[in-house]
């Protein structure tokens, strides 16, 4: 990992945050929900793999934290599909 690499990741995270912030104003819908959750997944993945340094670490680890992210976001997605905003 180089400093340049880390800086680029930070730029990406900033950009993704700006996008979700902008989507907060958008009218709610399944599409928006999907995009926001996908952004959250990408951001979380970056933090787990690159900042926490789990990329390339042996098995259960990246998998445990990644699994956490997937399960939590999947349950959230499921409940929003079940009960979409009015």
């Amino acid at each position, binding site marked *: 990992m180089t400093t340049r690499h880390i800086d680029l990741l930070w730029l990406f*995270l900033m950009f993704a945050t700006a996008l979700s912030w902008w989507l907060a104003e958008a009218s709610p819908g399944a599409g928006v929900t999907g995009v926001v959750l996908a952004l959250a997944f990408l951001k979380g993945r970056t*933090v787990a793999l690159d*900042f*926490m340094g789990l990329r390339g670490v042996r098995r*259960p680890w990246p998998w445990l934290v990644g699994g956490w992210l997937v399960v939590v*976001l999947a349950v959230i997605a499921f*409940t929003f599909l079940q009960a979409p905003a009015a």
Partner: protein
Amino acid sequence: MDTSATMTLNQDDTVEAAPLAPPGDLAVWFFILAELLVFAVFFIAYAVARTHDVALFAVMQQTLDPDAGALNTVLLVSSSWCVARAVLAVDGARLRTGARWLLAALACGGGFLLVKGLEYADKFAEGIGLSTNTFYMFYLSLTFFHFMHVVLGMLVLAVLWHGVRRGHYRRGRLSGLESGAVYWHMVDLVWLVLFPLVYVLH
């Protein structure tokens, strides 16, 4: 979990970090997993409770300030970035730079607490509390629990800053620094789910 094999690994803390074990101390990782589990249960409880009263949650979410939430995301993500830079700097024996990055991370953390504190002050001034309704029960509990983690994480960062200045860490002896760093990234990671869930999705 395969603790028996990994626990022996920590005895080789001094060995150059092979990408086998996660950075930092195994005990800290165990702790982080437990914390993630607590937050997961909290998030899922929120999401399920919301399905029972979608209208209430939709209306109440409108009373939050997404700008404050977004600003706080920027602050936390940036502080995580600063910490990652700090670890790299110390690894490269640039201790002064490392200490400065940690200070920057602390400043971002302080900014987060300030913004969140102003949000709370606003709500309390309106007389909102845990018993106002289910949404606010969750909003206050969840964000306050996270708030306390930011406070704890900042204490850890302060200790690391002190350690870096004293020259406690260097290449091959980064375990303490890395342990604190992953804890802070965990606080960030949790917020990255909390922010869209509470502020954005409705």
